[in-house]
């Protein structure tokens, strides 16, 4: 008799947890994609560099961002990518020279970090389960460290663990990061796998495409023209 009573309480508790989680999920999904009102002077920003052409496109955007609004800036790139962080550093250094700020201040405003990559080209699916877990844990660590208010990414896969962790942070209330995803200029007719995931799962707050054909196919996306 007593046992079934506990079981009853257990069911009620479980029901409560499930409904609270569902309500919170619905709340988060409702607010994703809705503009923010608060007026902070500046927002901490995580910039995910995807290597090669992805990095080139991202740095074109960083170059025209209002730098005093998106600060401090955290740049991350895949551990296998030696060039991207170096290019970001060159850009940041040139910004400093333009503004004539001493090298001392940049240390507090700009950070560079490498992230474990979830899957290398040609890696087998079995080992990639293990490496994906590692990448998620590393993403969690970096997100806890930075807790960015803004995340800007443009693929490829490097940004997926970061965006997943950001979504979980939104749900459990650790941090609300606005996610901006820019689909690569090389995608004219079909989204990339990363783009498709972020779009379908409603993970990105704003989703940008560079060709009108794509915008017609994915109406929630914003058409912004070519960045290159």
């Amino acid at each position: 008799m007593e046992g079934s009573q506990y079981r009853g309480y257990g069911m009620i508790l479980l029901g409560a947890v499930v409904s609270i989680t569902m309500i919170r999920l619905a709340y988060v999904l409702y607010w994703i994609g809705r503009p923010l009102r608060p007026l902070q002077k500046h927002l901490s920003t995580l910039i995910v560099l995807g290597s090669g052409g992805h990095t080139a496109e991202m740095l074109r955007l960083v170059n025209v961002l209002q730098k005093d609004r998106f600060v401090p800036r955290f740049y991350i790139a895949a551990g296998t990518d030696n060039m991207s962080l170096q290019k970001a550093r060159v850009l940041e250094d040139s910004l400093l020279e333009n503004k004539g700020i001493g090298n001392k201040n940049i240390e507090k405003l700009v950070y560079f970090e490498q992230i474990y990559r979830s899957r290398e080209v040609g890696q087998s699916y079995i080992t990639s389960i293990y490496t994906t877990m590692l990448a998620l844990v590393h993403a969690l660590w970096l997100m806890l460290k930075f807790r960015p208010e803004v995340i800007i990414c443009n693929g490829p896969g490097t940004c997926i663990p970061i965006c997943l962790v950001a979504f979980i942070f939104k749900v459990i209330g650790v941090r609300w990061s606005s996610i901006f995803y820019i689909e690569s200029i090389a995608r004219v007719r079909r989204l990339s796998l990363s783009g498709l995931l972020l779009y379908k799962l409603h993970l990105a707050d704003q989703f940008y495409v560079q060709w009108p054909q794509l915008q017609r196919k994915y109406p929630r996306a914003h058409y912004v023209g070519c960045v290159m």
Partner: protein
Amino acid sequence: MSGRHQSPKTENQMVFVTVGSTFFDALVKSVDSQQVKDELRKRGYTNLLIQMGRGFSIPSKSSGEDGSLAVDYFTFSPSIADYMRSASLIISHAGSGSIFETLRLGKPLIVVANEDLMDNHQIELAEVLADKKHLFCATPQTLHQTIRTMDLGSLLPYPPGEALPIANLMSKFLGFPPE
């Protein structure tokens, strides 16, 4: 290095071939074929320089003293941009980096699609830019035809893109006042 590939003569017309950061043997074999070299010579090009990456197909070097095309190659180089600047024609893989670098320099460009790639989305970009007359598109098999029939005068300059619309949308979304 570059001095070796360019003689001071002004009539030097260099064709620069780039496969990007990996390899693309089908392209290297194609530009090294007699058919393609003949067509290039007919169009007045004098030098062929191939960035072959880490592929296995080694082109045949030639000094070009007998009036044929002078051919040289290397694997990778930090000064790709310099070679692009001194080229009269660029034949490139379909990576967006080298496409936009060439277009920015205003050089005639033939993009060759790598049909061996599994997820061959890169051809989409080359095709849409070819439709807009900014470059020519070819495959390793059709490259000689493209060189024979291309009309360089039909190419239009590429207007550089702009990232400002994204920055503005982001700022608006985040509640920053418009500047």
